[in-house]
């Protein structure tokens, strides 16, 4: 079965891609992922904010004690190989790139205009085959409107696009008022593709200590629904861009649904973390088996087959979907 797909201009053997995760921090693990069948590997995001914080912390807790005593000009050994900031990330990207044959996609979460541009360039120079721009931020400003924030994102993509040659995708959050409009603006600004949707750390509350706790739970298949809808809409309304799903793909069926909704690539993290790298090969084989048994010629036939433009019941993706769910939930099956 021909499972091949084209994502961000990259020819992939199949759509199953390792999403941005800490899995890439261990080179042995990276090789295992490739051996297990990963079609491409997305690096963990380079978080500019973290780099800024680390630099500030280094200044506040290490440099502040330097040259302050006659007996000790510093307290932490100087080591030339101590990689700080982006160097550590870029070095790992180089190593991953050297370790595997499949495409390696860099990922970047910037906070400042200069950061986005500088790191995008550096990631390209380090050998990434494509770049995923993780535009997640938490807008808590009272004065900045959605339009201002969106315009800033569009401008950032335009600038990055003009400076790097590799394909660029934008990893979106689900919380935009008019996502299709935004995506089309981003596409016009030069984005080659989109990843839907980012998952975030969500705060929890410790009621004993009166403290906020952070953790990230693994995704479940239930989270796929939201993504299917928007893949279906975007692949129909903004043609010509690559789409990838991330979040909620746990089975071959999940992956097939995403492809049918319009995903050129299927990013997976939770399923791999839960089941190990072998999940990739298993899901790939099951997809092939299913397609074969249904006499598909290739995965390409299924791509976008169930999107807003092609599905038999487009209103199901729009307002009607809500109505229908309500209609099908009777008192009986709700157990009243």
């Amino acid at each position: 079965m021909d499972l091949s797909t084209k994502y961000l201009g990259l020819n992939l053997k199949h759509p199953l891609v390792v999403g941005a995760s800490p899995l890439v921090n261990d080179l042995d693990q990276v090789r295992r992922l490739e051996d297990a069948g990963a079609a491409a590997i997305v690096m963990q995001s380079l978080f500019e904010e973290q780099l800024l914080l680390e630099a500030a912390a280094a200044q506040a807790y290490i440099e502040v004690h330097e040259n302050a005593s006659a007996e000790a000009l510093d307290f932490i050994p100087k080591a030339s190989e101590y990689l700080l900031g982006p160097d550590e990330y870029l070095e790992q990207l180089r190593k991953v790139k050297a370790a595997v044959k499949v495409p390696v996609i860099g990922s970047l979460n910037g906070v400042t205009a200069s950061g986005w541009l500088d790191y995008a360039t550096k990631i390209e120079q380090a050998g990434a085959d494509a770049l995923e721009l993780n535009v997640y931020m938490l807008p808590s400003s009272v004065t900045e409107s959605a339009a201002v924030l969106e315009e800033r994102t569009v401008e950032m993509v335009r600038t990055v696009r003009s400076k790097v040659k590799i394909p660029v995708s934008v990893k979106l959050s689900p919380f935009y008022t008019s996502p299709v409009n935004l995506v089309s603006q981003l596409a016009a600004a030069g984005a080659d593709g989109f990843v839907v949707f980012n998952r975030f750390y969500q705060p929890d509350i410790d009621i004993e200590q009166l403290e906020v706790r952070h953790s990230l739970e693994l995704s479940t298949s239930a989270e796929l629904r939201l993504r299917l809808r928007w893949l279906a809409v975007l692949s129909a309304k903004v043609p010509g861009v690559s789409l990838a799903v991330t979040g909620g793909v746990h089975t071959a069926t999940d992956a097939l649904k995403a492809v049918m909704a319009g995903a050129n690539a299927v990013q997976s993290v939770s399923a791999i973390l839960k089941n190990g790298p072998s999940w990739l090969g298993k899901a790939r084989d099951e997809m092939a088996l299913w397609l074969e048994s249904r006499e598909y010629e290739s995965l390409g036939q299924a791509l976008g087959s169930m999107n807003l433009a092609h599905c038999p019941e487009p209103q199901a993706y729009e307002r009607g979907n809500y109505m229908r769910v309500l209609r099908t939930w009777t008192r009986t099956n709700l157990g009243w």
Partner: protein
Amino acid sequence: MSDKSTMVVDGNEAAASVAYRLSEVIAIYPITPASPMGEFSDEWSARNCQNVWGAVPTVAEMQSEAGAAGTIHGALQAGSLATTFTASQGLLLMIPNMYKIAGELTPFVLHVAARTLATHALSIFGDHSDVMAVRQTGFAMLCSTTVQEAHDLAAVSHAATLRARVPMMHFFDGFRTSHELTRIQKLSDEQLLSLVDDELIRKHRERALTPDNPVIRGTAQNPDVFFQAREACNSYYDATPGIVAEEMEKLAVLTGRKYELFSYEGHAEAERVIIVMGSGAQTVRETVKALVAKGEKVGVLTIRLYRPFSIEHFLAKLPRSVQRIAVLDRTKEPGAIGDPLFLDVVTALTENWEGPLPKVVAGRYGLSSKEFTPRMVKAVYDELSASSPRRRFTIGIVDDVTHLSLPRGEQFDVLGKDVHQAMFFGLGSDGTVGANKNTIKIVGTETTRQVQGYFVYDSKKSGTITVSHVRFSDGLLDAPYLIEQADFVGCHQWEFVDQVDMLVTIRDGGTFLISSPYNPEETWKRFPIELAQQIIDKHVQVYVIDANAVAHEAGLGRRTNTVMQTCYFALSKVIDVEQALGNIKRTIEYTYAKKGAEIVRKNIAAVDHALANLKRVEVPSSAAGHHGRPPVVTANAPDFVKRVTATIIEGRGDLLPVSAFPIDGTWPTATTQYEKRNIALEIPVWDSSICIQCNKCTMSCPHAAIRAKVYDEPDLAGAPEGFKHTTYKAEPFKGKKYTIQVAAEDCTGCRLCVEVCPAKDKTNPRHKALDMIPQRPVRDAERERYSFFLELPEVDKKVAVAKGDVKSVQLLRPLFEFSGACAGCGETPYVKLLTQLFGDRALIANATGCTSIYGGNLPTTPYATDTNGRGPAWANSLFEDNAEFGFGFRLSVDTHQSYARQLLQRLSGQLGDELVKALLDSEQVGDGGIEEQRARVVALKDKLAGMSRDSVDVRHLSALADYLVRKSIWLLGGDGWAYDIGYGGLDHVLAQDRNVNILVLDTEVYSNTGGQASKATPIGASAKFATAGKATAKKDLGMLAMSYGHVYVARIAWGAKDAQTVKAFMEAEAHPGPSLIIAYSHCIAHGYDLSQGCNQQKLAVDSGAWPLYRFDPKRIAAGEPPLVLDSGTPKGSLREYMMNETRFRMVEKMDPKRFNKLMELAEQHAKRRTETYEQMAKLVVSAYGGTQPAVTTSTEAE
């Protein structure tokens, strides 16, 4: 423009650069000011830098300088080219091996940054007392007078020792040369290679001990042969001066830089000559130039090769015309006819001078880096012109007791007009020194100008004031002394205007740049009158910039160094402004590139904004109406503090005469209370309505700046406005009034108390019983409140101690307060607790290290006294001997007590049997028992006062009566002392049966000297000398001590379990034999925000990195397991604990694979250790030996 053959370095790097490249084995041990030489070697070795033969030298850190010397001796015997670096006490510890190495005629170079030896006091600064103390060992001694020489003569030493076979000590002045930053010509590997003769290396290796060609060394010889055999080396010493001279000539051919064993500069027919060694020679040479230009017949003889002293070379250089000679020694040999250099010169002249002997006088100068300046040199020459010059004199001080000192004379400036001199006043934490080092590197590498930087730090570890002395010149810069005529003075902290006299050295018409939060007019108005008047009198041009605002706007927080550096370049024009700005920006890009584009952009923005915000102050003609600078000590300070201590605090200690000082190093304690440093920007404020009265805040405070008291309501009469109080809820003081009070002017703003505070406001948990607020607005009110608080009566100690919980104990007055320790220090809360519990009867022996610096460094010291005038008596002997030193206290106190008891019995007839019996039988249990015994001693003294003083017994008992009250002996120090250099002594003292309490403040590195690894450093931690991460486990000191069986041992961490900490202190002190407390101490060397220290301590304990236990031998007799584990089975993650600290994290960043391996080892080790302790905690040890299983087991005492 300079090229690759030059480098901007200090003397330590200059010497180490050669030593490293010409060595195979390097054994090291940290000691100020030589530590950086070892650190450079370790760093280069870790980076696989090669020596001139293409191999990477092996660097090994030892447990002491004695260990390093032994290792070197062995390495040399086995045929390596070896080196080491040391100073001061370290050099003394090497003496035995130095005799051996020399006696065996072994080629070897020891590099020394010469430093003062501890006598009446310790001093980290420079003089020749250490090198002069080893002049008899048989080592050749070669002295460098400049940083360039420290580089060049290092090479000469390594080359010459191979030929001469006499080991060499190459030395230069500590700090003045070791830490002076300047540009030097670098010796290339090729040049070094061509200096050392390969054939001589082969011969050295041929002499190595090897079973392939065995010989024996280190025999024991008898009276029949030893003497003759000792004389057999003579010809080698005779040949050495010639060899060194030839090697100097070889260097001159290679480099054009000429050196001589003795060099003479000055008038060809000089009548007055100074003979001197070390950096001071530069000052004399420059002064001589100026004087000769004025027509004076003066000259200077610089000694480089001091041992073997070549009379022939010496005489060849001394002009025959000389009539008067002053020999200047930088050491003091009390009781000698003269100091050593003087005696050598006199002997050389007496035996060999033809014709009438010149008059030779002896001068002493520069002890402990005392300034030695051209005016002093001129004063010496003036003295030589006197009809009858003093035979013995000192220069640089005022000796109004024995009247040895020469007058300092008039200001005498010998620097050329081309020399630009700038001084910068900053805080250690604001990056001023780092920025100046950058400036020097910029000018030193981008221009042909010569550069010089020297940096002065005060002795506090928090709020350190730094003064940078920076010079640039077109010609040579031979000025090894602080700036006396500044063209430019920069003040990087506004607060200094009321604290520091910054313009005392500014020249007429000089420039003063100050970072000020006010506009130019307001800034001027807020200058104290002293400063304003100096500005007017000296026609100073004043510029202001709100550097904090500019830095803040650029997003750099409080890091103002880029802003101030930019303004300096713009105002001083030491190099072209445009060029300078370009250079700064390039340096920024280079320095911050790794940290990301945003940080580069912010710094560059700061450069651009700096000039736009730089403003000139119009200076009026009068300073009338300005306020006066406030006094540096409080009004209630004793006379000595006002007279002496205050002068030191003001930075005018140089002016104090000899008569001002104690003759024997004895100083009054309790003086930090008078020095109000006001270094906290924010301080905690107490909300009594939320407070749960746990007193964890006072427990955690490193500086005793937050305190708790309970008292009766009527005591509140006269309380100042806003004095807070509430009702105390817990026994035994339930119902009394309760106050938490901050000493606002003494707080360092570390936040530990706020972080540890568990009391949160339920509706707004961000608000706690302690919040941080800006200090300045509340300073005056809080001063008054704290003053009232101090007047409130103290808690009844015996009641609080008997209760024994943290909150009761923390109501006790700390007798250790406001030390100079780092903000957030993890050690000092233990020291403070010790003084709260036992301070009124404690003698403290303190090993050298952080504890001795914040415990005993002038100007003010933190050990305090209670309302009865009692408090800890404290002394520091050395680093290596502290256990023995404190053991000596115990022997003496026990002896006094035993004699006093004997006298009591002898005098019982006169004193009354009842009183005597009560005195003798008192168990003195608890503070109540001690209070009763003290009362009996008062009664005893009363009786003795009425008895005849003719009786020896009465006189002796009167003097010793206080020893009938139990004394508490404490031996304090860090892990460097207890685990490494002092372990032998510590182990021996533990093996005795005397009642001493040993408190090890374990930061897991040598903190005071800058974070070098000790045997307490845990697996996986990066520390200097273990940069790649320590591969072996931390030594289990507690387990070793437990193996004796009679030693009380506790392992504690106050931030994790303060109740166990208090319990351990009380049990240890009550234990009649030796006790050992190993105390987890977080430290700036761990590389994280120390306000999180308590949380990190919790993680350390929960993860098994730091198990808590108490091993009490008294439980053995009770049939219980002596070991009680106070921390349960580890539940937290060791990784989480380790990842919070840079010392571990950087290992991961350097080499994740190695880190994971070390992490695994650390986990295994922690597990194994916990399992062992858990097993031990179940063992009941038979009092008669052997073990038997416990009937019941317990892992928790409480």
